[in-house]
């Protein structure tokens, strides 16, 4: 009886630790800002339904973003974004697959803020481009908050801004990511 009990406890603990390899969320937040400096017209949108998974052993990190999930304050801007710029009916999803280079430097058992470097491929509007950025992994109470801030140039993804509004929309958007990741059980 005792052996079975010890064995069960061992198995439960072992599997729990193993399952802690992956952390994820389906409610990640991505915000982008394409406002032209000194322009009174704010061009920004937020997406609250981003999926993110990170493997803390390998450093592999993935994001999946449904383009129609970006919310703009003005309906007309959102329509232009979807219909003319990113053509979300044709390319409904943007995906990022990358690697946290210095994952071993992060101690997931110790609360704290860790600076990381992420490198990977962003696929959007049918185009792919390599992205390299700095980011932060904030470990607290068994959860990970992943944040990053990086530029995305529209032309890299063949997203064309019509000449009429070219002075109102920035050529490079500022993208902010914030995801609170829970352990995958």
């Amino acid at each position, binding site marked *: 009886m005792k052996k079975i009990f010890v064995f069960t406890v061992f198995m439960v603990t072992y599997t729990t630790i193993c399952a802690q390899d992956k952390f994820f969320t389906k409610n990640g*937040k991505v915000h982008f800002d394409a406002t032209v400096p000194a322009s009174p017209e704010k061009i920004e949108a937020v997406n609250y*339904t981003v999926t993110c998974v990170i493997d803390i052993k390998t450093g592999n990190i993935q994001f999946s973003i*449904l*383009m*129609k*999930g970006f919310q703009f304050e003005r309906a*007309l801007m959102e329509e232009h974004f979807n219909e003319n710029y990113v053509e979300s009916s044709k390319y409904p999803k943007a995906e990022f697959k990358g690697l946290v280079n210095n994952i071993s430097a992060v101690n997931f058992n110790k609360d704290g803020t860790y600076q990381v470097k992420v490198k990977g491929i962003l696929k959007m509007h049918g185009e792919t481009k390599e992205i390299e950025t700095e980011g932060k992994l904030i470990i607290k109470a068994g959860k990970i908050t992943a944040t990053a801030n990086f530029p995305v140039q529209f032309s890299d993804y063949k997203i064309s801004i019509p000449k009429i509004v070219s002075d109102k929309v920035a050529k490079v958007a500022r993208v902010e990511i914030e995801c609170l990741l829970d352990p995958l059980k």
Partner: protein
Amino acid sequence: MPDCYHKKMDRQQYAKQLNRFKIMNRKTVKISFVSVIVIIAGVVYFTMSEYRRKHKDIADIPESFSLNSNEIINSFSTNEKSAYKMYLDKVMSVRGTVKSIYRDVGGACTIVLGNDTSMSSVRCSLDSNHTDGIALIKPGADISIKGICTGYNADELLGSDVVLNRCAIKN
């Protein structure tokens, strides 16, 4: 051109004709001027109202589909491409059992519809104007949610999801 231009007339007749022409011209100019102002005002008004237009509340938009969560999940999992064509960007009401409720520190709420037999679900992100009443919703409840379909995330590891945005609880 006034008649005086074409015919031979005496001075008085000529002066009368010219005067009539000038008055007619003034009237035409006035009418044209006012019409142009009105047209410009109309165009400006239309442009500004389009520019300032906010999103319609989901409750005010008629739904294109009414289905249960299993139906829409199966639709996407069997043929993602055709399901996208049919459902992407459409307003729909989805009925199902509440699997879980997610609340963000910022106030964003998501109701997950599904059941224990499958990892797949329908994730309904509530419109910020429709988050009241969420406290009354408990897992296991049978509810109907109206929202706009933003797509499908196929995932073997995490479970596939159909995602709805700008949602409001229907009943």
